[in-house]
């Protein structure tokens, strides 16, 4: 698995002209397992949207460097899925094959085996024909992880994947994250559970609009850094002047 790295060159992402991520510079190394941590409104989800490309930077550049086009797999926060739509779990998971099958391609016997393996890996055997409207929050998250598995991406972005998920499901899904890491995929996850970050994620980016610290988790999550992050002012100033940093 040729992994993908993500390079940020003085990246500012935001809405209107107000920055949500301000002057981020650095690199997520290929094959690394990185947690993105910070208070609410710190720009964590915005950062992931920037990497996926659904939000263009106000300034700076985000570049993905990997062998080939290596697709990005992205699990948004509380995925915007229409749960009332009449779709089976099987079909939802099968969408993960999109990059292989595209708009029109068929799904062959090999693909069916893949889908079965993915369903087995997340413990959803027996749910294939169930409509997605009947799934619980945790079961839905398992199904979405099965879809991520099928996407077979070299860069995987997870936005608060374990929020409102029980301990057993979290443990199962974390095993998948560890497996992806072992397979040398690059994984970036937005998380709030600092104990989990310390246990599982070697690298951490602590962000509070401005990047506060980035590197080895133990150093980043120091009491001083966490205090700095907590002091972020959430509201933006409607009369803020244009940013002068790097102007010269």
């Amino acid at each position: 698995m040729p992994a993908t790295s993500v390079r940020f060159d003085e990246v500012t992402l935001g809405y209107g002209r107000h920055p949500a991520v301000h002057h981020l510079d650095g690199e997520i190394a290929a094959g690394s397992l990185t947690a993105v941590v910070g208070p609410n409104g710190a720009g964590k989800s915005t950062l992931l949207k920037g990497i996926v490309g659904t939000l263009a930077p106000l300034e700076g550049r985000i570049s993905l460097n990997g062998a080939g086009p290596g697709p990005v797999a992205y699990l948004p926060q509380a995925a915007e899925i229409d749960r009332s739509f009449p779709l089976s779990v099987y079909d939802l998971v099968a969408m993960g094959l999109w990059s292989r099958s595209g708009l029109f391609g068929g799904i062959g016997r090999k693909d069916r085996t893949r889908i079965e393996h993915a369903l087995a890996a997340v413990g959803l055997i027996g749910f294939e024909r169930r409509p997605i409207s009947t799934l619980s929050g945790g079961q839905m998250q398992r199904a979405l992880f099965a879809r991520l598995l099928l996407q077979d991406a070299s860069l995987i972005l997870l936005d608060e994947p374990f929020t409102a998920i029980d301990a057993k499901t979290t443990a199962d899904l974390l095993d998948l994250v560890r497996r992806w890491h072992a397979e040398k995929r690059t994984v970036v996850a937005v998380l709030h559970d600092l104990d989990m970050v310390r246990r599982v994620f070697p690298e951490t980016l602590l962000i509070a609009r401005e990047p506060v610290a980035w590197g080895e988790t133990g150093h980043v999550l120091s009491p001083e850094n966490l205090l700095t992050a907590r002091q972020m002012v959430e509201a933006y100033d409607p009369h803020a002047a244009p940013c002068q940093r790097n102007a010269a």
Partner: protein
Amino acid sequence: MVEFLISPFSEFEFMQRALVGVIAIALGGGPVGVFLMLRRMSLTGDAMAHAILPGAAVGYLIAGLSLPAMTIGGLIAGVIVAVAAGLVSRLTNLKEDASLAAFYLLSLALGVTIVSLRGSNVDLLHVLFGTVLALDDQTLLLLASISTITVLALALLYRPLVLECVDPTFLRSVSRSGTPVHLVFVGLVVLNLVGGFHALGTLLAVGMMMLPAAAARFWTNDITVMMVVSIAVGIVSGIGGLLLSFHAELPAGPAIILTAGGLYGLSLALGREGGLLWLAWPGKHLEA
């Protein structure tokens, strides 16, 4: 019984033509209606139907009750309103439903005004309620072509259409086909409305889309089956409505839509997926 069901169609050519026409409309309209419903665009269909009117009216003003002129006029007006409403909702604070409502009210008023400029009240009734009992060869060919194009296009676009309804974020992360697919779909809606317009008029054309689709939703959770059921409901409504209009001497277009409405009511009451009967008497709960 045979007398009642068959002979109106075997004896009268205009009834045969009407039958062919409504079957063609049902084949295209049902599946499009299912997607409109699943994409929560049911009222968009209604708005678009009104939007077609001024275009058709301009065609009428130029060429009288001419099929090509009114078809082309209707298509152009429908596409303009769809695109304009989309642009307004994307560029301003107004949501798409509000901007569509604004555009379609304008269109309806404009269309009725234009038709009245030249025509009689009879012509106005033609435009508003259609002429399902007076379909000529040209119109039948048009209806058949539209349903063929629709079924083929939906077969090709099925996957992105479904995906864009269920999980638009995911579609955006794996493909850029979302917007073009949406535009083609809106095009199909307009096309089917223009077809339905000739038979059922601007006000009722959307009925052969939404009523069969809404009825079908009560019978299945499978989208493919839903489309088939919607087509069946459309065809049965067409046949039933034509017979009703023939025997009871009712206007044909409204009779067809009323029949579809009856089937919708039946499905609402008895449908296996969320029908009222099953809600009222769901049976004893299960063990697991």
